[in-house]
């Protein structure tokens, strides 16, 4: 996917108000996705290159059309919910399009027709779910060690459906109490295997308000708001 058009990128005021949080999340994403790519390389037993993750904060209404060409595009979504103490929640969602899914299954499971995502058999779905789980757990492990946190993951969920139908539910859950407009963090990363095939993974990091405060406190100290 190309970069979103300019009108989708939050305006300067938004960055000005949000900057430290944005930077923190960007750094977390870089670390997390880097670990995920390493895990994928081991899983596929191939050399894997990754692009620098592109990080965007977008209004929830536009999330699905930034991730895919249109709301009704069929994608694979793997979701992991992680929790820490006292209502602090960090959710992760990985989205893969048809082409990437096809590439991944072609490597891990040969001779399988994967042209239609809706017709995948249980074994293929299970492979996708576990691959997603591995990538997301590596992401969360990296975030845990970087921020000295203890986000504890639940078991993963896989959904294969229209992108628009999965984003709103995941993005909204426990984010209703965020002030004002609901914005989410999108991390986009292209991964290339050594035979030139491309796997594009979009990982969404979704800290709720409590989690965001916790992260900021751990990264910048308890009084971060006064010092910035």
């Amino acid at each position, binding site marked *: 996917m190309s970069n979103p058009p300019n009108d989708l990128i939050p305006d300067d005021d938004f960055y000005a108000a949000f900057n430290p949080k944005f930077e923190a999340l960007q750094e977390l994403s870089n670390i997390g996705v880097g670990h995920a790519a390493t895990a994928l390389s081991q899983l596929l037993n191939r050399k894997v290159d990754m692009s620098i993750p592109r990080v965007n904060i977008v209004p*929830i*209404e536009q999330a*699905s059309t930034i991730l895919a060409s*249109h*709301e*009704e595009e*069929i994608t694979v*979504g793997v*979701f*992991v*919910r992680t929790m820490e103490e006292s209502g602090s929640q960090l959710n992760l969602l990985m989205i893969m399009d048809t082409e990437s899914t096809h590439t991944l299954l072609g490597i891990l499971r040969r001779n399988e027709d994967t042209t239609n995502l*809706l017709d995948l058999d249980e074994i293929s779905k299970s492979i996708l779910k576990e691959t997603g789980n591995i990538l997301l757990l590596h992401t969360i492990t990296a975030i845990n060690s970087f921020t000295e946190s203890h986000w504890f993951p*639940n*078991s*993963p*969920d896989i*959904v*294969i*459906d*229209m*992108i*628009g*139908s*999965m*984003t*709103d*539910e*995941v993005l*909204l*859950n*426990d984010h*209703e*109490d*965020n*002030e*004002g*407009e609901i914005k989410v963090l999108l991390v986009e990363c292209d991964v290339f295997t050594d035979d030139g095939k491309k796997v594009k993974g979009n990982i969404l990091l979704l800290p709720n308000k409590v989690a965001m405060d916790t992260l900021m406190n751990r990264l910048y100290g308890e009084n971060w708001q006064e010092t910035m």
Partner: protein
Amino acid sequence: MALYTAKIGEIVVGKKGDQLQALALGSCIGLVVYDPKLKVAALAHILLPEKSKFSKPGPPGKYGTEATGESIKNVISRGGLRDNLVAKLAGGAKMFESLTSGTNMDIGSRNIASVTKSLGEHGIKILARDVGDNQGRTIIFDVDSCLLKIKQANGTIFKTI
């Protein structure tokens, strides 16, 4: 003759010959309030059950508590009669099981409850609904026939209500 699409939080209005649609509803609700006799309809794409204390005013169809009232206003302003109004709705799915392993009810169910309650308060009868479950839906409302077509991810219309 036109096809109008309600994006998240929007309400679109159509008259005889028009079609109204909302794409890829997950936990969102597509609510159609319409006058079957004069053929005027409004479709709202509802995102959340109600405003939280922090919420800024959103677009008219964003919250279940407000969308019904706004839809009624829209239909009447385009020539519908208050006494004729009825409703159909679809959506409110629960796509990810593990999201609601905690105490909170899932957003889809809360959306359904909020919209149903709000329709009751306005005295509008629900003629048909296709809600819940764990699949995405694209809905298309034909103002002429007052039928609501519901499409699955694979593009087939699996239900007409």
